[in-house]
Structure formats: C-alpha cells, structure tokens
C-alpha cells in the first residue's frame, strides 16, 4: 500500500513537470548541443510510454501535440515520427493480442481498409496544408486535441453489450469471433452491428491519423465498442492491432516525402516502447483513474499550446 502511494506521488509531479520543463527549455536553451534534444526526446517519450499505458490511452496520441508544442522540430517531422511511433507500438502489441484472440483479424480487416485509404488522403492533405502554412496544422491540431480530451472524458466504454446478430454487411464480411474471458474462464462469442455507420467513423479516423500523425486508439475504441457493439476487450485489442494497418499507408507517404528523420524517430520509438513496458509493470501498483485525469490534463495543455502556436503566441 505504502509502495503504491509512493509510486503514485513520485510519478505525478514528474508528469506535470515535463511540459513545463520543455516549454522553458524550448524558449531559453538555444545553444544546446545536437545530442541534447534527441536525449530529451528519449526521456520524454519514455514517460509518455509509461503514463500512456497506465492511463489506458497509449503514448501515440500524446507524442504529436507534446513534441510539436515543446520541442524545436518542425511539425512535419513530428507527424512523420508520430506515425512510426504508433506503428511501432502497434506492431509490438499485436502478436500477443492476436494469439490471445482478443484482437480480431476479421474485425480489423474492413475497418482498417477504410481507415488506411483515408489516411493516405489525410497525409497528402496535411503535407499540402503544412507547405502552405504550418499555422493551419497547429491550429487544427490544437482544436482536435481539445476535442479528443472531451471524448476521453465523456465517452465511457461499456461491458454490457450483447449483439446476438449482426446485419447483412456484418455477415458478408464475417465479422464475429470468440475469446476467453480470463476473469471467469468463460468463452465469449461476439459479433457487431451498425457496420455502415462504423465504417463512416473509420473514414474520420483515417483522415485524422494521416493528417496529424496521431495514433487513433481514442477514436477506434468508442466506434468499435459503443457504436458497433464489440466487447470492450475486443475493441481495445483490435484498435491497438489495427493501427499497424491504418498507419502503414500514411507512414510510407511521410517517409517518401522526406518527413522521417532518424534523429527524431529512433529515440522516440525506443523511448516509448521501453516506457510502455515499464508502464505495464507499474499498472497494478497505481490507480489508473488518477493517472488518466493527469494525462488528460497534460493533453489539454498541449492542445492549448498548439492553438497558441497557431496564433503566434
């Protein structure tokens, strides 16, 4: 008990301090050696990984707003790195989730197909707008992040869903599956409904993923769970896995356009993946709701910072 309180109280201030330190650093330390920023990036993404897992939102959504807001890198390179971070995290999680039958290939295939097509559109649109004026990206990112904060605060997943039959489209696409609920040992059969509306949701998910380089777990899960009726465990796991499909098209576009810098991508990917591993080990020792609210607050600050950047403040 004492240990858990200690862990909580030692982690909370460090999370709150990260943006403050980085904000100060980005304005005051201009003469930092070349290795200073990649090192700061490694430690920041490490903490994003730790807290992202503990808050249940993944570190991907934190990366673009925080790094574009508080680091000196151009937003094009940050978005390119953001896509690879989401891709790397998804690839790392997918084997386990697929083996356990929590992530569903049959659910991911059609939804990720729609999302990855629109991620291509989003990537081109984002790079085109950024070339016109990056202020458009900062402004729309700020607004999107604030909207994400509200979705995270108000969209509550539900366990009490029972979709006994899907619809014609669900049956054509054979979207159903079985997984074993570890807490009870029972096998749970599931299918989904409102498939057309769900697919429309993935149009938006794809556009945002390509446009901002964001991991889209915050949007995937409510669509799969609340709208389409997939069990929450299947929704979370399939969302995590499907990002590796959705983001791969946009990641190729950013890479082909030259927006992927190894000096940003590699420390970030390694940092966030190490952090996520530590975070999953710390998870039983901390209270996820407290961490979740802190992470949401940091995300809100990052969104406001993006908006301020758009107005040149």
């Amino acid at each position: 008990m004492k240990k858990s309180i200690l862990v909580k109280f030692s982690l909370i201030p460090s999370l709150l301090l990260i943006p403050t330190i980085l904000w100060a650093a980005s304005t005051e330390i201009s003469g930092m050696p070349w290795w200073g920023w990649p090192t700061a990036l490694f430690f920041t993404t490490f903490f994003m990984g730790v807290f992202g897992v503990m808050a249940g939102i993944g570190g991907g959504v934190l990366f673009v707003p925080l790094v574009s807001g508080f680091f000196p890198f151009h937003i094009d390179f940050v978005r390119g790195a953001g896509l690879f971070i989401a891709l790397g995290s998804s690839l790392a999680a997918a084997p386990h989730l697929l083996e356990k039958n929590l992530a569903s290939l049959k659910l991911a295939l059609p939804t990720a197909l729609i999302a990855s097509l629109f991620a291509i559109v989003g990537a081109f649109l984002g790079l085109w707008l950024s070339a016109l004026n990056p202020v458009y990206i900062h402004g729309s990112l700020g607004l999107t992040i604030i909207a994400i904060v509200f979705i995270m605060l108000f969209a509550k997943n539900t366990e009490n869903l029972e979709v006994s039959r899907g619809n014609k489209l669900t049956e054509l696409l054979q979207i159903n599956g079985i997984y074993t609920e570890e807490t009870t040992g029972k096998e749970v059969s599931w299918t989904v409904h409102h498939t057309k509306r769900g697919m429309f949701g993935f149009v938006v998910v794809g556009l945002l993923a390509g446009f901002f380089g964001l991991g889209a777990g915050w949007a995937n899960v409510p669509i799969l769970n609340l709208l389409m009726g997939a069990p929450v465990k299947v929704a979370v796991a399939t969302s995590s896995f499907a990002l590796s499909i959705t983001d791969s098209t946009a990641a190729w576009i950013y890479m082909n356009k030259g927006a992927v810098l190894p000096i940003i991508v590699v420390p970030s990917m390694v940092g966030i993946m190490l952090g996520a591993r530590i975070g999953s080990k710390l998870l039983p020792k901390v209270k996820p709701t407290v961490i979740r609210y802190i992470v949401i607050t940091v995300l809100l600050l990052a969104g406001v910072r993006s908006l301020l950047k758009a107005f040149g403040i």
Partner: protein
Amino acid sequence: MEKYIVFENAPEQHIYAKIIYHISNLGLLTMIMGFILYIFGVLTPLVPLEELPKYWSLSLTQFLEKTGAPTGWRWTAMLGYGDVIPFIGVTILASVTFVCFLALLFRFLQRGAKVLAFIVAMELFFILISASNLIQISH
C-alpha cells in the same frame, strides 16, 4: 428458418502474429544498429550532426532544399551515409503489414474466402500505391 451464425476467429490470426513478431523485431534491431552507426560517427552523415539543429526546425521543403536529403526510394542509392542507413530498419518496420497481408491473401485464396481475399487485395494495393511514391501533389 433462421440462419445460424458460426462464431469463429480467422485461423490465419496465428500465422499473422508470428510474421509480425519476427519481422518487427528484425526491423527494430536493424533500425537501432543503423542509428548506432549514425550517432557514433561510424558512417559519415549527409548532414553533419552538429549542424542538424539548424535544419530540423525548417519546413520540409526548405529542409530538403538545403540538405539534399533523399525523397522516395533515392535513399537506397545512398546507404553509405550515416543518416540514411537507419532507413533500412524503418523500411522493414513499414513493410511488416505488407508481408502479413501477402501471406493472408494466399491463405484466403487457398480456402476460398473470396470477400476477405478481396479486402486484403485492396489493402495491398493501397500500401503499394503509398510505398511506390507514385502519387504526387503540387504545392
């Protein structure tokens, strides 16, 4: 008479999981090794490390103009440079889904799952289009 739904997972999930596991580990390892060669100066970079802070806050267009950094697949002809070598690992990571979907396509065709094979073929097409650098936009 009501039609029964057979609830089942795609048997290909496990093959998919194995391919992801092995190729993404290979990609990650290759990327980290390339990065070590880069930051420890074993291979000379196209843009000297000390000068990077002057360029990373530039817009993409300005960055490419001033550094001559490669776009598209031109990096494959520049593998002697430190800041290009990590792209081998990055490319492997970006290709994992393509390889998995190729395996899925063969499996689905083998067992006559036409709808799923069609979805997979479409996804492969989208990935190929994105990776090929054939789509261009003008500013």
